């Protein structure tokens, strides 16, 4: 296959590593997602190899790679590291230029981002040091309740009322869940309560940043319909969830890689 000049974004998150490959016209050629595991550099290399393979491209076709996510500095092929805050804003803007607010809940942190009409970050807030109320929280609760992770949202929506969960601390909430089960509380009610607890936590971040329409939700937790619905109610605005909420950061990184390569080409031609 003939070589196309392309650009890659790699997002090394705490739970999953994502890659997106785009061409010169910013058209996505391929995207993929793998568990991050304990060896971040290897995970990054694997996702990159996989998207290249999917697109029928080879490494030399890649003009620039922008790495993001908490493992961004572990990506061997990176041209540059950019924080996931900037990348999520850029990715969300590319998907829906009308987006002015992004709520991202990943495996170990959550963020609320306000952006301008060009997709630049204006303000942001990020959760505290621990992973309370994030994807990891739901992951642990799913195991405690013996429910599949992707079933949490639909099951929670069947509840007539949420059980009262007072904490988003994974350790405290887990013991609360065990007590609730012992008291005879049903699983849907508990799941509904857990989703609501996440909603309250993200709402305090969101209100500090100030949410303006359109609001997009990114990150793995955006796949949970009960959390999305709860957030819509809490902030009083509809929330858009893209088809692949987990790769928005990697998409933003790929677009930034394209900017970077273009900027370099421009300065090169100016100099020459």
């Amino acid at each position, binding site marked *: 296959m003939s070589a196309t000049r392309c650009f890659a974004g790699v997002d090394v998150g705490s739970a999953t590593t994502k890659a997106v490959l785009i061409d010169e016209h910013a058209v996505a050629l391929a995207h993929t997602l793998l568990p991050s595991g304990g060896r971040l550099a290897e995970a990054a290399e694997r996702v990159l190899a996989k998207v290249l393979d999917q697109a029928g491209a080879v490494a030399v076709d890649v003009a620039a790679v922008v790495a993001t996510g*908490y493992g961004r500095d572990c990506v061997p092929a990176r041209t540059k*590291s*950019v*924080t*996931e*805050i*900037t990348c999520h804003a850029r990715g969300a803007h590319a998907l829906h230029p009308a987006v002015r607010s992004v709520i991202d809940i990943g495996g170990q*942190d959550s963020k609320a981002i306000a952006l301008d009409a060009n997709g*630049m*970050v*204006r*303000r*942001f807030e*990020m*959760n*505290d*040091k621990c992973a309370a109320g994030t994807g990891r929280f739901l992951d642990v609760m799913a195991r405690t309740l013996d429910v599949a992770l992707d079933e949490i949202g639909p099951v929670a929506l069947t509840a007539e009322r949420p059980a009262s969960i007072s904490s988003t601390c994974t350790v405290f909430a887990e013991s609360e869940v065990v007590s609730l089960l012992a008291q005879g509380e049903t699983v849907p009610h508990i799941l509904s309560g857990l989703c609501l607890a996440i909603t309250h936590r993200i709402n305090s971040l969101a209100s500090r940043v100030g949410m303006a329409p359109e609001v997009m939700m990114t990150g793995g937790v955006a796949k949970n319909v009960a959390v999305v619905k709860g957030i819509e109610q809490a902030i009083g605005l509809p929330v858009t969830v893209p088809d692949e909420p987990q790769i928005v950061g990697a998409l933003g990184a790929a677009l930034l890689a394209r900017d970077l390569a273009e900027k370099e080409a421009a300065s090169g031609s100016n100099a020459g």
Partner: protein
Amino acid sequence: MSIDSPSLLETFEQVCANPYQQARAAAEQGVPVAGLMCSYSPQELFHAAGYLPVRILGRAGATPRADQLVQTYSCSFARSALDSGLAGELDFLRLAVFSHTCDTLQNVADLWKRNCPGMQTLIVSTPNQTAGAAAQTYFRKELARVRAELAATAGPISDDDLRASMVLHARHRATMQRLYALRRDNPGALTGRQMMAVVTASFLMPKEEHLEKLTELLGALEQHPPGQADTRPRVLVAGSVCQDLGFIGAIEDAGCRIVDDDLCMGARSFLVPEAAEGDPLDALADQYLARTPCPAFHCPGFDPGTHLLERAQQAGADGVVFLLTKFCDPWAFDYAHAKNTLDEADIPALMLEVEQNLPVPEQFRTRTGAFVEILQSRAGL
């Protein structure tokens, strides 16, 4: 004679790495050492009485002794300083000096008095309202009481001795201000971490010695021509204390340049008006009350937001990073207001919560990184 600024800067870093080494050595030579917990403790008085005044710092590590005595919502600075006292790490002190500022330090003072035998605990009361004649009368009276208490053990402190000490401290502050000005004009001259080391060492070394080394450093840096134009965003750091040089280093590692600060243990300690003629105690009381007021005080007419905005504008800062010691509510309440003022003036601000114990966490790196990316995109970089 060639002046070697890197090795001089290294000296200051070493002082910060072993903060009490010099004080301990002085104590072993028979010099009485006073440990000051707060910027409102009048170092000039202790110096005039023959004491070596040094600041008590917080420290990293577990605080099991303090944990038995203070609530979980006390800040890590107070907690770790108290733990150092209880553990006997400060046994070289003759005096521990507290000021009546925040609730936590007031209570730690009482705990210190009961639980740290072997040294005298001295509390310097400060007026809760720092403006006006009544505040001056009150604080002058308090300084006179401290002077008399010191005289009981160290002998009388003459007006001339006090004046001489005030002149030394004024010269030191003026020289520190020159270093701050040099950095504002030429941020490439020294890194934020190096500057913070010079600042922190000034609270730990004998003033005469710090002044000498500082003058030498300024001489070396002033000869050094400014480097290439630095396109990195200019940042002002604000807050109470930043004793962990690693935090300052981590902020700059995100890709910005720290060009100034509005820290209590920083520029606020050096931007003090000159002493008036006449009665030295009057002048000293005036000087302390004219400091940028601690957020634990009430000061009519002072607006913390306007103050921070002015400091940021004077520094030509593109953004402000606010280091908030976790559980420090006086600063936390002021921050919300200051942030609004900065927002209105379109100066981006970032608040970072810091603790003595924690290494630089990943979220800190992402936050500072994203903040610098905002500043870069605004500058079209």
